[in-house]
């Protein structure tokens, strides 16, 4: 209905293979970007930016990381939290060792450490598949958690055992540390996430992304078509971990301000996993939807008692939101295993074929 595509035709392959071949989608994305980059900073409250938008963006990026591995390359992982931790600690170490290095560069470099660790723990994927692999990622999770506690060098021997984000400037503006305003932090995160999403989309539609999906859909056929499982799987681990690492660094540097091992524990791994499942495996849009859903739902649930002046403990609402999310996960798996993204796609398809029920 909203999609009236008559008259949109492609005269080059470049146009035909564009990320958003439909004009209405391009307009929609443009609107979203305008809202995100212009309207949000102008109108949103500091609270909204720092407790909803910033975490949402951080988790979206982490979800993209996990989704690359799980949804596009078909490798199950339960170690996302730890990979985020690797990014965060690397970023912290680098910026304390080289305080003058531009923090954004440090941020992007820190993902490389995460990627390297990811490759190491991805090695077993060459021999084992599915659930077995999931368990080896648990090994990564617990081993790395242990490292974050035991290797004091990682947090510069702080007594608290936590990493404290120092102040770093960009164009004379404090973008990290206690003096960075939510708006600045939001805009930095938004830019990083926007660029990295575009990069992910590009990689996914190219040769490398296709090789991941080949391995995912039919690994034997992929191999017989010349895909090297070694390179393909490890590159997926590296890529995925890179994204998780950057997300972890963003989380600490632009959201939390300081962090201990708890910020990277297995519960975080699960949180990201839920975002990917609910958002939709194999969809970048789904990562944003899942992150929004999983992050915003508890916020709303927590707000309910205050809004209706009910005498309910915050902890109680926390438990309820856990149940709700659990139920929703099961519901989605039963009704639509491909998550919100598929619902959106189905809805869009309906709008495209409106008033007909399906394309003729």
């Amino acid at each position: 209905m909203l999609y009236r595509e008559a008259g949109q035709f492609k005269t080059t392959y470049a146009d035909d293979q564009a990320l958003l071949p439909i004009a209405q989608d391009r307009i929609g994305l443009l609107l979203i970007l305008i809202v995100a980059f212009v309207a949000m900073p102008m109108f949103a409250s500091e609270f909204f930016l720092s407790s909803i938008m910033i975490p949402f963006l951080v988790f979206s990026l982490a979800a993209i990381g996990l989704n690359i591995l799980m949804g596009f390359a078909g490798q199950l992982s339960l170690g996302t939290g730890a990979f985020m931790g690797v990014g965060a600690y690397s970023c912290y170490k680098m910026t304390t060792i080289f305080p003058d290095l531009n923090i954004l560069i440090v941020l992007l470099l820190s993902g490389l450490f995460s990627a390297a660790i990811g490759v190491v723990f991805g090695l077993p994927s060459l021999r084992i598949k599915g659930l077995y692999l999931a368990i080896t990622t648990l090994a990564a999770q617990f081993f790395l958690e242990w490292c974050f506690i035991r290797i004091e060098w990682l947090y510069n021997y702080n007594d608290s055992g936590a990493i404290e984000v120092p102040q770093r400037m960009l164009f004379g503006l404090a973008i990290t540390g206690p003096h960075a305003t939510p708006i600045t932090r939001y805009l930095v995160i938004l830019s990083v996430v926007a660029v990295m999403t575009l990069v992910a989309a590009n990689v996914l539609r190219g040769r490398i992304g296709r090789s991941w999906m080949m391995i995912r859909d039919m690994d034997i056929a992929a191999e017989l078509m010349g895909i090297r499982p070694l390179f393909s799987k490890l590159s997926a681990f590296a890529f995925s971990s890179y994204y998780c690492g950057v997300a972890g660094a963003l989380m600490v540097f632009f959201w939390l301000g300081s962090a201990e091992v708890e910020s990277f524990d297995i519960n975080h791994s699960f949180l990201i996993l839920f975002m990917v499942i609910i958002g939709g495996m194999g969809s970048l849009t789904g990562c944003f939807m899942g992150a929004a859903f999983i992050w915003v739902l508890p916020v709303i649930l927590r707000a309910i008692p205050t809004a209706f002046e009910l005498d309910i403990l915050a902890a109680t609402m926390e438990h309820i939101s856990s149940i709700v999310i659990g139920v929703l996960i099961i519901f989605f798996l039963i009704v639509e295993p491909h998550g919100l993204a598929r619902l959106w796609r189905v809805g869009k398809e309906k709008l495209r074929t409106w008033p007909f029920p399906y394309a003729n």
Partner: protein
Amino acid sequence: MNKSVVDSIDVAGDVVSGTSGSAPALPSFPHYLLRNAETLRNRVAMRHKDLGIWREWTWADLLQEIRSFSLGLLQLGLRPGDKVAIIGNNRPRLYWSFAAVQALGGVPVPVYSDSVAEEMGYVLDHAGIRFAVCQDQEQVDKVLSLQETLTGLNCVIYDEERGMQHYNKELVHAFDFVQQLGTQAVERDPGAIANWCDGIDQIDTDGLCVMLYTSGTTGRPKGVMLSHRNLIITSLNANRFDTLNDQEETIAYLPLAWVGDHVFSYGQSYTAGYCVCCPESPDTVTSDRREIAPSYFFAPPRVFENLLTAITVNMEDASRMKRAMFDYFIKVANKHGEKILNKEPVSPIGSALYGLGKLFVYGPLKNRLGMSKVRVAYTAGEAIGPDIFRFYRSLGINLKQLYGQTEASVYITAQPDGQIDANTVGTPSLDVEIDIADNGEVMYRSPGVFMGYYKNDDATESTKTPDGWVHTGDAGFIDDAGHLRIIDRSKDVGKLNDGGLFPPKYIENKLKFFSDIKEVVAFGDGKDYVAVFINIDLTAVANWAERNNIVYGSYQELAAHPQVYDMVLAHVEKVNADLAAEPRVASAQIRRFLVLHKELDADDGELTRTLKVRRSFIVERYGELIDALYSDKTEQFVSTGVTFEDGRTGTIDATVRIQNVPSVQRAEQVVA
């Protein structure tokens, strides 16, 4: 110098008098190509969805391509007057062949590509073709299989490479190869281009431009010879009539050999300079049309019928709510749509509802059909059901009817914007004169009138009078508003005893447009009044019966049911009212009818295998019933032999009721 002629065409496409003084220099199609390549240099002239994307050619590109191909043909020995068969689907290169051949003074002969080798053989042989431009291996094989009879065949050219590696290189050439020959010729002799242009100036615009074989339903196809003047004047007039310009987009999907496609996709495109898009394959026309969203669109009624059926079928699968909404807004459109399209006043509520409908239904629907940008759409060829016609118009698609023939270079009449009626075919097109002969046959005279049938003077003489009038073979009349109405093939039109016209097909079609009625046989020639046999449509009527709680045990019982008779009577009365409104056929109102107790069936010989009524057989078989129709009887017993599906035979006995119908009087009739 050809420049003068090209200059004489102004941008609007009108022909301005030449500078030389005497007669106006009329350009030929190659002249238009030269003009377009100059004035519309960078405007897209043609698109073709090939290998997944739309390839585009501007007019300048087109000139390049056509010129090199034309020069290549020259190298291969094409001489003025040579006939060149063009066989295949709507492919750009096949369209280019027209101008390329014409530029050398040759005559393109497009041939229906789906005809079997034998049929094609007749046409190719009759036309005496020397060259054939084929789409693919399939067509090349057909032509080569006729090689022995086609003594003059000099060369076969193909567009698609697939499977063509191992053919005789002496005889069979790739399109590219021919173009290369042309390019090489220019490289050898730079003057070749100028010579080619000079050749274009030599074209006799009153000479043979193209030969189109009519796919006659009876007898052998006849080659209709059309001149440049025929096509160009007609095209220019058609463009002016609908204010078509170089901004139009059309999709070429009808057979190349059909005059309609030739005029829409070649004649009018060259004269107006608009873009013609060729679909990827016949399977993808629907989606390709959606991608292109043509602004000027033509389709025979069956295309519109099929589309409507597809819409209905699709909507049956839709959710209940969506279907209810769809049905509601279609009703709204029925009520107000046409008025809004005709710019007539509509109540504010009506126009508000229509606006909503446009948002929720009409707009998206047109989008799906690929008709959201249609400015002018035509249907022609046969009668279109008024409901179907109104359906599209009510959506806001400016669908119009036209009446045309190959012999007229298409246009005889067309409906001007805002003067639309499902029953007429419009007013005479520009420069067309129309006359109704004493026997009711429509005659016309126009600049588009053909030169004659190729190698068939007898047929030419019997069709075209010496002073240029052409027999259409259709009976019709001009109504009060000056619009032509076609009622039947003139040889089928009979006379009632009171002298009134009896057009059986016209009456039968009017009744058959009701979905409850499947088949009609009308009688009246040499009788006092018109009477009809009616066959109900079992599916539709059973459905209706179910909704109205009518119980029946068999087809026979249902057909004889009083309420069914009432329903049919209502339809007949409506038809009578329609007939009464048209003075020429007012006396052909139906006075008596009966509903047949059995379905007319091909197994019983009542229908042909293509499901057409075998009138003579029915007259013989149901003589008693016909007699009863022309008597005072109110019912008649009849015993009919039938063949069952398993081959057994038996008889059906029935007493069929005969119903009288009151006739409608109209003041005008008295005056007439």
